């Protein structure tokens, strides 16, 4: 479980910031490479490979910690990670360079794709190909859901929260923020801090 490292003591100089020497340009280039090569989603694997394995800018433990922040906050994993790592390395400027670089290649590509689609999207062949793409995308996202579930769920009650969320959005047609806040609060209270030092602790 990835939270076991949290009770690490607040060492004045925890291993991270000192030895790393990354210029803004280095940060820009590395995130540009990640932003340009991470075809097909799964950007987290590319981030880990680039930042932990290749550049050794963050340790595996820090990476997991940052990832858990990224997943808790709104925002995409790729951009939240860019901000967190960039800020860790070089402050606000580093964060800005990282997010800009990670978005740039995909942004240019989708800009062009949008233009092409506008021009040719209504052709029967293109339309048929895109039907295939859309069907596969649904399969891909379902697979992501299954894989995420295997990794980050803590128990059977989580399945209940998942089902309530889906029913709220898809069946009752409640708006996403309402469901997010309502079920989020419910689940957070379910996982409320239990074992208080000196108090009784259940399980």
């Amino acid at each position, binding site marked *: 479980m990835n939270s076991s490292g949290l009770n690490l003591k607040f060492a004045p100089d925890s291993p991270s910031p000192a030895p790393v020497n990354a210029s803004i340009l280095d940060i820009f280039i590395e995130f540009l490479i990640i932003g340009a090569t991470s075809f097909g989603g799964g950007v987290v694997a590319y981030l880990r490979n680039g930042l932990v394995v290749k550049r050794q800018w963050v340790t595996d433990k820090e990476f997991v910690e940052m990832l858990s922040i990224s997943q808790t906050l709104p925002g995409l994993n790729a951009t939240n990670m860019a901000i967190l790592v960039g800020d860790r390395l070089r402050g606000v400027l580093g964060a800005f360079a990282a997010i800009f670089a990670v978005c740039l290649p995909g942004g240019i590509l989708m800009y062009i794709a949008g233009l092409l689609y*506008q021009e040719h999207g209504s052709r029967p062949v293109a339309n048929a190909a895109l039907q295939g793409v859309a069907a*596969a995308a649904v399969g891909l996202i379902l697979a992501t859901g299954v894989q995420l579930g295997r990794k980050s769920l803590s128990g059977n009650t989580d399945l209940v929260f*998942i089902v309530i969320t889906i029913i709220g959005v898809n069946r009752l047609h409640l708006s996403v923020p309402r469901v997010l806040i309502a079920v989020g609060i419910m689940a957070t209270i379910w996982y409320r801090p239990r074992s208080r030092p000196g108090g009784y602790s259940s399980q």
Partner: protein
Amino acid sequence: MNQLPALVRVFAYLSLLTVGGGMAAFPELKVLTVEVHHWLTFKQLIHLYSVGQMAPGPNMMMIVSIGEWVAGPMGALVVVLAFFGPTAALALLVGRLWKRLEHWPWRDSIRKGLAPVSIGLLLAGCFTLARGAIFGLETAAVMVATLLILLQYEINPALLILAAAIIGAFSFTPR
């Protein structure tokens, strides 16, 4: 008519819903861009979103296409800033506070509580997408095949999506 303020409002709002990933915002993305503002049709949204899954980088860069359609290059730029600005600022702030919240017992409760919600939102978004993308046996077969292959093998999803495009072009084209 100047659509830029509407673009900013819509995409800044959507960005705050992307807990656990872009898919969480998809149902609202559909309502706002298709039903409220009529910037594109549901089918076009599905096509762009699906193509966007293949693109490298953050998997919501398809918003650039919407911005460009609505208001040209300026629209594309505005959409990106509106969509990534708020969450970037939040990540910066919370990233710096996170260490200090280490001993705040609710930090872990929130993290654990949001995990199932974000998966629920992912699936809810996925079902909204499926409603427009899965019709008939062929599309269902492509979906199931993609799901099973991805769960079974380590393969780049972009290749599968590309294969699905080719299958689609050959077999879904009306004759």
